[in-house]
């Protein structure tokens, strides 16, 4: 089956024998974007979270056939080193990661949360950010999520002022 999808704003076409191949495998092994991680393969840990048309999706449990025609964003496409996404900037400021393995999934889940709830409460965070971090960086992540919301808001207000 031929799949065409935009990944980080670039159009990719891949030929896949098994249309149920997890999108995660295609992103990592065919498109060579290794930022998205494999943790459990059962939609339980969130390490593989990326965005499909702006929505958080666990790509280990997302058959690539569903990605046809969609816009996928991985951690590599969230921002750049020069111009990090507010979530990435906040993560740097709060020095969140320990081993780092789970972090891309958390950051993508946070980006999806801020799209829906620009100023999340602790309760919103508890409910929506349910990924697993074996290093226990939850405390710093919570701070970073609030910080990302602040950065987002100030970015939005400076955009409005400049326009």
């Amino acid at each position: 089956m031929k799949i065409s999808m935009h990944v980080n704003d670039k159009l990719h076409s891949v030929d896949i024998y098994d249309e149920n191949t997890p999108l995660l495998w295609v992103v990592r092994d065919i498109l060579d974007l290794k930022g998205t991680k494999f943790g459990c393969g059962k939609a339980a840990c969130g390490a593989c979270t990326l965005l499909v048309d702006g929505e958080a999706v666990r790509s280990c449990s997302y058959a690539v056939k569903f990605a046809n025609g969609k816009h996928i964003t991985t951690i590599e496409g969230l921002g750049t080193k020069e111009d990090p996404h507010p979530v990435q900037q906040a993560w740097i400021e709060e020095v969140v990661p320990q081993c780092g393995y789970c972090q891309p999934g958390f950051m993508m889940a946070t980006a999806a949360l801020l799209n829906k709830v620009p100023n999340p409460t602790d309760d919103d965070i508890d409910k929506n950010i349910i990924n697993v971090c074996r290093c226990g960086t939850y405390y710093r992540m919570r701070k970073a999520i609030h910080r990302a919301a602040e950065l987002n808001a100030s970015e939005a207000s400076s955009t409005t002022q400049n326009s």
Partner: protein
Amino acid sequence: MKTRTLYTFCVLLLVGIVFAATKGPLTTTYLHISETDQSEEASDIAFDKMMDVLTHQRCVNCHPNDHIPKQGDDSHPHYFDVVRGDANLGYQATNCNTCHQSQNNPYSGVPGAPEWSLAPHSMRWEGLNRIEIAESMMDPKRNGGRTPEETLHHLTEHELVLWAWEPGVNADGIPRELPPVSKEEYIKAVKTWFKEGHRIPTK
């Protein structure tokens, strides 16, 4: 010897005929079943068959009486503290479709079907008996304002409902348990029950 056998046979035959003519079952020993009774019986049988399915965990897991979806053949609360949310689809950013798509996933064991969601709270069935479920199902105040025709359609054609017969495998790759009645038999029973006037048996 032959003559004697023939004689005995004829005598027995005669006795049999006389007995049958005089002592045969009297018509009054038959119970006359009226058409109404027959239709009620058909309706009750169909009701039971339909309810064997609707009370199965494949259905009730998504009709909880609290706000927590249930999972598995043991109907445990959905892992990861997943709850109903405002639109029966979970939370804003982490919702049903974060993990569940429109088809089962054969590799992760995550089930999926079109319109994957929880039944609204008004349609809670968990803990109700068969009669109470039927009352709830036919009550427009609780069934989302459905007419009987619409309820029939939901029960027999909605892909999410029919998913119960194609529930896929669980996270360990083990096939999920099917309802105790085949899909074809169930659909026939539901149609019969509605055709016979969707009569809920008395308590």
